[in-house]
């Protein structure tokens, strides 16, 4: 017990530090008679979704509304659980507080560029993955950078202490790493020409590339050099909810709603919708 708690805290740090990728959690609470999301959805017709608010194309707070691929996925889940769109409440989460939010019940479901990994699985139950992201590079349209191997001597920007930044430091030592506390600053620096590339999960980069004010200026290199399966987090003991989410995703893969979600958000940059591989869905244990 003591060990898991430590590991969990370790994870919480990892999280906090990396705005993009992230980590683990607080502690193994969440038992008791917690009502699963399926029960809550059918009795209250309401659900609270934890989402990002600063990642264009994925989860972005625009005015008081939220937009993006994660938001569309959240809507699909809500619909599948019988919750009307008016019953959805979005709550901003940052990488650092996703696990505590789920455990304390401040949110019911987290759809927030949430990579599934073993550390987090100890404290959160994951449905999905609904998308397999991977670390990639965002460069100006005319750039000669074609992948991480061509970064030698180039300035690469990422978020301070994040997993992508670490990977550059350890695997691509010839690149010069510039770190900021948010991706919007990195993208600004890329627009100003003070850095040569921005690196993080491809899907996040695609979101920036698709923004109106950057239209035509940037491109995503398209050479993933890691795998980040995005999952949908629910309480650790809510196996029923997790299974239901996977069922909903299976339906969404075939009835076109997954593709529609993509086309309405990230697909705007011209990228065709990916295939939702239902064989890879978690077993919710």
């Amino acid at each position, binding site marked *: 017990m003591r060990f898991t*708690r430590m590991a969990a*805290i370790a994870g*919480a*740090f990892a999280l*906090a530090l990396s705005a993009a990728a992230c980590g683990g959690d*607080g*502690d193994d609470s969440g038992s008791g008679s917690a009502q699963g999301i399926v029960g809550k959805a059918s009795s209250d017709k309401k659900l609270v979704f934890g989402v990002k*608010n*600063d*990642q*264009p194309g994925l989860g*972005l*707070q*625009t*005015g*008081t509304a939220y937009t993006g691929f994660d938001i569309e996925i959240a809507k699909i889940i809500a619909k599948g659980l019988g919750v009307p769109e008016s019953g959805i409440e979005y709550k*901003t989460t*940052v*990488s*650092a*507080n996703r696990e*505590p939010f789920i*455990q*304390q019940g401040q949110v019911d479901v987290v759809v927030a560029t949430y990579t599934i990994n073993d550390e987090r699985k100890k404290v959160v139950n994951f449905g999905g993955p609904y998308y397999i992201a991977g670390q990639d590079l965002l460069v100006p349209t005319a750039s000669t950078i074609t992948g991480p191997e061509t970064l030698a001597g180039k300035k690469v920007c990422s978020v301070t202490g994040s997993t992508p930044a670490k990977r550059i430091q350890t695997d691509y030592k010839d690149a010069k790493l510039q770190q900021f*506390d*948010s*991706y*919007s*600053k990195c*993208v*600004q620096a890329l*627009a*100003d020409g003070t850095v040569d590339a921005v690196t993080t999960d491809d899907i996040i980069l695609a979101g920036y590339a698709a*923004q109106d*004010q*950057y239209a035509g200026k940037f491109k995503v290199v398209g050479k993933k050099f890691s795998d980040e399966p995005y999952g949908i987090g629910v309480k650790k003991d809510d196996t029923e909810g997790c299974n239901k989410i996977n069922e909903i995703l299976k339906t969404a893969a075939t009835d076109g709603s997954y593709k529609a979600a993509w086309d309405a958000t990230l697909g705007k940059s011209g990228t065709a919708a990916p295939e939702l591989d239902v064989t890879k869905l978690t077993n919710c244990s």
Partner: protein
Amino acid sequence: MSTTDSVLYDHPGPRAKARNAVLTVVFGIGLVLLLWWIYRQFDENGIWDGPLWEPFTESETWTAYVLPGLWSTVKAAAVAMVLSLVFGVVFAVGRLSDHRWLSIPSGIVVEFFRAVPLLLMIFFIFFGIPFLTEQPMPPFWAVVIGLTLYNGSVLAEAFRAGIKAVPRGQSEAAYAIGMRKNQVMREILVPQAARAMLPVIVSQLVVLVKDTALGYIIGYTELIQNGVNTLGANFGNVVPAAIVAAIIYIVLNASLTFFAGFLERRTRRTGRAPRIKASPGTPVPAGAGAVVEPQG
């Protein structure tokens, strides 16, 4: 302008006037040219581009990003202000106590929190304290507690210096009429010290307001997080957004500073506050306003 300022030079005669005029023109032109150059460079980099500033003409930008951020900033600052004043008084009195078991630990606490960068403190409170208490720590409280420990410690030193500077006759008179030690402290010394140190206190509170910005390290959604990062993610205008945030801070803090100056003038005029002389060795210098520590 204080009295000494104008005493440093003679009333300008014709030659001095001419020289001043030349200096004014030369410096003025230089300054204008510099500002113009900066403006041009910013222009070339598209910082003044309409689309980047357009969001600020829409009310939604303010109601959805800037004002909620400002509210978080003000809320954290207000709570931390109250708590750090309490902390300051308690530890100042503690450090002045005759009991060693009280004064030594108080001294250690105050010295420690004054020496540790607030950035490290807030980070540790958010991630380290839950490890000890096994309770989650909301970002809001992590920021407030961090601000309280640091600014409270600085205020404790200010109060201590203030209490020490209250003329001895005051406490002697109080003892003479039979007041107890803690009565003297509570009813005689602390009120006078607080009034004398008012400008210092308010200046430190300005520092506190700015320090809320350090909440970014744990994702507290204050003015910069909300009004620069989130807003910037929407419109790709982090630089204009940062300019707006800076202006808000400057207006907010300048009015607080102005208020501090007003209080200083008022207390000086009515003469109710004890005169605190800069006795060497106390951490409070003559120009009390300068004692604040300019933490970020």
